[in-house]
């Protein structure tokens, strides 16, 4: 048992971190917000072409690097730190995971090489659909970056379907969304032809998806803490830097306490997934609920500590605050995840 990054994992961590620090900018994110796509294309293409980040969970035979959940979490964390406007979570993690795991050879050959190159963008719809005779119907208003997606992974009754968006039976429309870096589109399918990804159930997709969202939250929470610490170390009031006041220090200490636990949660869950452990579900429920709540607290504290400047559109604090809020609700609220843990630790037949 060893709970620390391997040398390779540490190297990936450093490479992704320094790459994103140099290339992901608030300006790029703002352009993606303003044009309504939530897609920072230059960043996305650089991720694909320079580091191959769009193919990290794709088997090598399809052009990817076939890395595990820990590496996925490392990349999610780094992107979350930048609150980057890219469809990495929806396309490169969740949709890709579904096809890599559940697709036939033909489906994998069709999609994975293009996903690896970053030339195909997909998204997912986790609720609101049913399937009859191979035709999927329903509506979801919560499809991340859906308007950029050429196909959608759709969950219906624990089965996983692949549906092209380029048909008359599919209607995708943009919506003004709380988090403009990951806007939610409205998807309506009316007896749309769907391909079953036969080898996987939705419940097998979930642990990695929850863990990836949690890792995004972890990175975002760390960014909120770092920006707050920098600010309170410079801002002077009453003749002192405000970071010397205990009320301020203790708030920041609480952020770090939450963050450290969130970090344990994310990498515990990722490690469980990679080792196919018995606790993979429990750990990813824990990570999703804990890290997302920590992010929401840290993002809220950051706005409070930054004072008026944190409430301006110009400052990035609101991007983190909105992403944090969106992560809380995406794929199950914290209380729902905790109830799932309660079901695991308190089996019904043992209750009085």
């Amino acid at each position, binding site marked *: *048992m*060893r*709970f*620390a*990054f*391997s040398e390779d*994992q540490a190297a990936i961590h450093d490479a992704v971190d320094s790459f994103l620090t140099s290339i992901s900018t608030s300006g790029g994110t703002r352009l993606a917000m303003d044009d309504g796509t939530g897609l920072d294309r230059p960043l996305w293409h650089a991720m694909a072409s320079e580091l191959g980040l769009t193919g990290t969970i794709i088997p090598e035979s399809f052009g990817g690097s076939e890395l595990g959940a*820990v590496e996925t979490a490392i990349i999610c964390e780094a992107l979350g730190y930048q609150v980057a406007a890219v469809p990495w979570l929806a396309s490169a993690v969740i949709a890709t995971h579904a096809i890599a795991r559940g697709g036939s050879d033909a489906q994998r050959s069709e999609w994975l090489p293009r996903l690896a190159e970053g030339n195909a963008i997909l998204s997912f719809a986790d609720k609101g659909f049913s399937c009859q005779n191979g035709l999927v119907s329903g509506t979801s208003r919560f499809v991340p970056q859906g308007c950029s997606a050429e196909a959608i992974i759709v969950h219906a009754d624990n089965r996983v379907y692949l549906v092209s968006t380029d048909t008359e039976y599919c209607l995708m429309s943009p919506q003004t969304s709380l988090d403009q870096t990951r806007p939610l589109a409205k998807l309506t399918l009316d007896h749309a032809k769907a391909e079953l990804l036969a080898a996987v159930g939705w419940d097998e997709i979930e642990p990695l998806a929850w863990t990836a969202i949690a890792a995004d939250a972890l990175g975002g929470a760390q960014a909120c*803490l770092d920006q707050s*610490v920098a600010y*309170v*170390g410079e801002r002077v009031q009453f003749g*002192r*830097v405000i*970071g*010397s006041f*205990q009320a*301020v*220090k*203790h708030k*920041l*200490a*609480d952020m*770090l*306490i939450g*963050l*450290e*636990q969130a*970090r*344990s*949660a994310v*990498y*515990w869950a*990722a*490690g*469980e997934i*990679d*080792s196919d*452990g018995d606790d993979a579900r*429990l*750990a990813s429920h*824990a990570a999703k*609920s*804990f890290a997302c709540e920590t992010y929401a607290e840290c993002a809220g504290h950051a706005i409070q500590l930054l004072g008026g400047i944190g409430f301006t559109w110009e400052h990035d604090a609101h991007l983190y605050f909105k992403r944090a809020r969106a992560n809380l609700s995406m794929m199950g609220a914290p*209380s729902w995840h*905790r*109830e799932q*843990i*309660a079901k695991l*630790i*308190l089996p019904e037949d*043992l*209750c*009085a």
Partner: protein
Amino acid sequence: MRLTYTESERAFRAEAADWLQSALSGEFSDLRGLTNRVSAPKRRLEWEQHLGQARWSVVGWPAKFGGRDATLSERLIFAEEYAAAGGPPRLNHLGVELLGPTILTYGTDAQKSVFLPAISAGEAIWCQGYSEPSAGSDLSAIRTSAQLHGDQWSINGQKVWTSLAQFSDWAFILARTTPKSVGRDGLSFLLVPLDQPGVSIRPIRQITGDAEFNELFLDDARTAADNVLGKVGGGWEVAMSLLGIERGVSTLGQQMTFRNELDAVMAAARRNGTAKDPLIRQRLAQSEIGLRLMRFGALRMLGGASDNQTNAAITYKIQWASWRRSLGELAMDVLGQEAEIAPALPAGEYAMPMLTELFLSARADTIYGGTNQIQRNLIAERGLGLPREPRGDLKG
């Protein structure tokens, strides 16, 4: 990252489990499941010695001092099996978990060969003399003095909140060896035998009804000149490293006690039906998450030395203390008024059932070893680099 166990780790687990099961279902079955830290001290002393004879007392120490050179994983495994077998609280936990590792770091060869085997064999039980009436959170305000007379230190002063002193043979204390020094300078870390005329011990009764803490009066108490750990005048550094250990490895064993406590709360909730209450379920799940994250936090901080691991270490004390306090509150909500009734005792005596005692004893957790407020200062100053608290000039 590897969350699975190797063949040899599994073999180690089986060996530890076998030994613990047989000891705690045979000769020491009366100690099985004991949670109170002051009851049955004689039997628990025998248990220390029994562990020592079989080399299970200090598995992480070098073999020449009575240990097994166990890896971190093996220490974790032993702690898990110890708790699973219902092992009692260690009477010598301050010696085994705090002083021993500090001697391994700072001790001379002579000190190692004298003190370490005695700890592992259960022949010397240790307590910790840090706090004083005027030196609590501000530990560096220590007034207890020690002066060298020939080949002996003469020690004068008063220590307080000294856990388990009434069962101990030795105390490790911080004393001012440079007269008129202030703050962290001029302190030394002394090892002091307790069975002597200059030492008197007075138990302090706590809100649980037990007396785990004591006052320790030092009135020309003596110890040999070479019973200084680290440099004379360098006691602060040694004491701080020990507090680091307190936040580190020793907690792996403690977490297993927490596991048993959480299991007891869950069992109570199932028995009385509150396990169906959605709000109770949320809190039980939260406790489960908190405990798991403590485990992986401890593993992370012990796994290496990067910044993240330092932060994991520095946030750990407040994390477990707050977790246990919440668990105590949850236990009371699960049990309701039932928790308030104990088996009958003679008038004037007071002992509550296990989960009620958890509720009460947890109130100390967020105070000793650095209060939650001091922890937040430490985290902000050392973890985040924020300015230090200014000192006032009042005398306590």
